[in-house]
């Protein structure tokens, strides 16, 4: 028991080499997902006709595709039409696109709960749709989305080990290399789980801090 604990502790630094990659993948995928997600959410609510339909289709499609499938599609499939994308970029695109569909839902829910009167008020001042979106709707939507966004972030963090499937060395992969040479899978997987758990906690508290900095009296952000 003690021996296991020592083994775990001594190998954590090795596994931690994968932390930077895992964080990079998570952050970049989330950013990609956020940019697309916000755009999709806005277009679904304020867009007209064919654009609105196209965007609904996008959301429907990417909610249904498993990340691994999309990842392989991007990494192995795209070369068939001449697009050769690096493993790292493939992971970011794969995770980012899948996340964008869920983030679109989060933002849409937030915007809808803001109410149409906010938009009306902005328009009545002569601000126009775009300015109202930017100065009135978006600041409120971002605050309301924070719990859902934090949740999605941890989901993407926990999906980052998929990068292993296209040969990227991250926490899990470093673990597997150790297992191959020393064959103590239980301790290594436990160590990896611990590292992910700590990462998760760090980001959770980071988001909590951000939420408290930007909170506005009157906006109740659920404890999540």
């Amino acid at each position, binding site marked *: 028991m003690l021996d296991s604990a020592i083994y775990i502790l001594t190998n954590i630094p090795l596994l931690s080499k994968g932390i930077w990659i895992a964080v990079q993948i998570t952050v970049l995928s989330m950013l990609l997902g956020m940019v697309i997600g916000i755009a999709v959410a806005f277009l679904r609510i304020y867009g007209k006709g064919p654009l609105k339909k196209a965007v609904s289709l996008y959301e429907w499609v990417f909610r249904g595709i498993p990340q691994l499938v999309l990842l392989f599609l991007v990494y192995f499939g795209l070369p068939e039409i001449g697009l050769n994308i690096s493993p790292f970029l493939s992971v970011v695109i794969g995770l980012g696109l899948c996340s964008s569909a869920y983030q679109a839902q989060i933002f849409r829910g937030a915007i809808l709960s803001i109410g149409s009167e906010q938009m009306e008020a902005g328009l009545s001042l002569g601000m126009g749709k775009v300015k109202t979106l930017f*100065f009135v709707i978006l600041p409120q939507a971002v605050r309301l989305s924070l719990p859902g966004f934090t949740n999605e972030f941890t989901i993407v963090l926990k999906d980052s080990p998929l990068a292993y499937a296209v040969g990227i060395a991250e926490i899990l992969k470093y673990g597997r290399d150790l297992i191959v040479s020393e064959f103590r899978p239980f301790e290594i997987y436990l160590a990896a789980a611990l590292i992910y758990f700590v990462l998760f906690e760090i980001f959770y508290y980071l988001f909590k801090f951000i939420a408290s900095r930007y909170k506005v009296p009157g906006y109740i952000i659920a404890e999540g």
Partner: protein
Amino acid sequence: MKQKYFVLFVLALCVFITVISGCAKKTAPVLRIGTNAEYPPFESKEGDSYVGVDMDLARKIAEKLEMEFQIIDMDFDTLIPSLSSNKIDMAISAITITEERQRQVDFSEPYYVANQVIIKKQDSPLTLEKVEDLAKYKVGSQNGTTGQIYLTENFVDKNLMKKDALKKYPTNIEAITDLLNGNVDFVIIDDSAAQGYAKLKPIVTALKIETNESYGIAMPKGSPLNAKINAALKDLMDSGEVISIIQTHIK
């Protein structure tokens, strides 16, 4: 409103990072070598370096080609798709030459002959007189390996063994772990790999199956590099370096 600029800045930063990471430094052409470094004594990682028979071979081939090389570690069954989609220039990973695989990739000359073995836990009372005896048991195998194909074609497809009696794992590590946990009775595995694992864990060979498989280097179909790689390999075989590399790792 400072929020907006911060967001824009972060977005710009991430676009910048992705673009940078996407752009490889395109100076001299690099030999991209794919492998699944979870298969000692042929390929595995010790710390940051790749070790094993295939790894030494790969280095020597790159030397002969006078090219820089890059080892790309991935799942075994993504090696062939990676060749087909131009992600790697060659794959060296104890890959058995089969007709099926030859339809998708080109192979070099064989550089090693292997057989399958059936391994069991050291303290297991089970015995096998002949191959056919396997049909009564649960047998583990690594995905995409000739061992798995052997059992599928000769047992499962012939209805001698139930489909779920042949258990499939991403790598031998999981198969052997399950063997030691008692979830499978036997594991089918290449003999050289079995040798490596036997040093770490209490497993023994229960039966040898003479399949006489040859390992070869897999390469993209019709790639201009193939002739050069093959020539390099031939040189190494003729000079006896291949044998000496093998003997360094396999006693």
